[in-house]
């Protein structure tokens, strides 16, 4: 069953700005042209087997100025791929004037064009590979922001907590789950051992205790997939000094920018990043 948690849609090629995003599309004013994005391939190593997988990412902005730019590393959610999350990336690229800084997001193993099949440790290894790529381009930790959405919060929180050589300036998490145990027991009411069901842990609520950089948490109050109680628990357990929360009235899973209003969403992120 565990592998089902990492179901990802495969692609032969990315379309990015030409992708038909449907309801996820954002207004044209946030559009990013092909000239302003770079498709990146990286090697992600399975630390247990030593096997190497080619995974893909996309950088919006100027790769040659990463060393002096502010960068958002965005870890997307489940099932979809870089094309599906392209509209969200264009919003993040619009937080200040477009292209003044970069946005980097990657497809995990088994998602989009990336090779292999993902796992809980694989998510972390894939984000690690993305951090390594940023470091190789000269990115500065003090100007790097981590942003995780839903499933993407798992590697983002882990890396913010446990990767000592590259501590980001700030962390943003949107609609995180607290843990598999919390999902299970909140649904059952009873204290059932989660190991009776799955070997997955997704222990965001524990790992956040070791995150010390400023934190912004966004969650839809009406999220009927990962209930806001999950985020509340993570927010409460946060181990640092500065934290901020945006509980979005009427917000569901994945529709926070649209529910807040795109400009309000962008402004909220900008105010946090520029603190």
């Amino acid at each position: 069953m565990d592998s089902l948690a990492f179901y990802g849609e495969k692609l032969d090629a990315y379309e990015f700005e030409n992708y038909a995003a449907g309801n996820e599309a954002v207004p044209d004013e946030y559009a990013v042209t092909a000239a302003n994005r770079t498709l990146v391939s990286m090697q992600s190593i399975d630390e247990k087997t030593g096997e190497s997988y080619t995974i893909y990412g996309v950088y919006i902005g100027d790769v040659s100025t990463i060393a002096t730019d502010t960068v958002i590393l965005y870890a997307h959610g489940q099932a979809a791929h870089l094309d599906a999350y392209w509209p969200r990336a264009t919003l993040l690229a619009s937080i200040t004037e477009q292209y003044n800084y970069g946005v980097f997001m990657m497809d995990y193993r088994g998602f989009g064009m990336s090779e292999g099949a993902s796992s809980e440790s694989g998510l972390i290894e894939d984000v690690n590979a993305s951090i390594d790529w940023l470091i190789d381009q000269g990115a500065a930790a003090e100007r790097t922001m981590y942003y995780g959405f839903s499933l993407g919060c798992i590697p983002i929180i882990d890396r913010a907590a446990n990767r000592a050589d590259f501590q980001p300036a700030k962390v943003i998490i949107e609609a995180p789950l607290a843990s598999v145990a919390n999902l299970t027991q909140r649904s059952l009411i009873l204290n059932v051992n989660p190991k009776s069901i799955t070997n997955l842990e997704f222990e965001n609520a524990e790992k956040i205790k070791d995150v010390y950089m400023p934190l912004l948490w966004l969650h839809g109050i009406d999220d009927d997939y990962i209930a806001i109680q999950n985020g509340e628990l993570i927010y409460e357990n946060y181990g640092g000094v500065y934290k901020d929360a945006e509980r979005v009235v009427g917000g569901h899973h994945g529709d926070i920018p649209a529910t807040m209003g795109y400009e309000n969403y962008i402004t909220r992120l900008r105010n946090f990043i520029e603190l």
Partner: protein
Amino acid sequence: MNRPFALALFASIFGVTSCAPSRFVEPLEKDELTVGFSLGGPVIEFNGPIPMPMTSVEVGYGLDTNLTVFGAIHTTAAYFGNIQLDAGVTYKFLDQNKFIPNVSISPSINFMYTLDDRSGKLWPILDLNAYWNYGNRTNYWYAGVNNYFELSKTMANDQPQAHHWIFNPQIGHVIKGKNDRWQLTTEFKFLAPYIKNWDAFVPYKSLTGGYGATGFYIGCRWKIGNQDN
């Protein structure tokens, strides 16, 4: 997170709990032996409301006219690598008299052992049911409450255990075959109808709206011993 994982997760979590109707509401006759199975679970939204098809196999034995001992193994839980058993007794302490129903009580335990983790857990259960026999075959309707008791002080991530007593009203009907050789049970169970279900990962479809879940179960049992009674 995605829907396939969600479906597999709640299929498996219902494999370990909430997967059975009341075992015995009416005690067997003395020395009667039965075997049976049950099928059903909480109703969820999955391209329309459906009950989760959870299964268990049971055995019962009449220790006395008013006292039956029973046990069951949860076969769906076994599929997920867990040994889950329930066992208990049903005792009838009030006989039907005009408008006064029969009343029985069933203390039992639900025990689950997780092979991967080599750990076990036990929940005490107490059922109290009123039932009304009717007709030549003494079929019966029943209504009662199923009570689960959670003994743990904390739940995931060191949160205080929110509910130590979980109260589940239930109604059901039992049809008996010729000479009472078999019985067919249908039951609705209103699982925790006073607890909001909005923060559950599972898309419950509940007759009580945003509260609890509605379980639907069917079961069948056959008498394999002392069939002349």
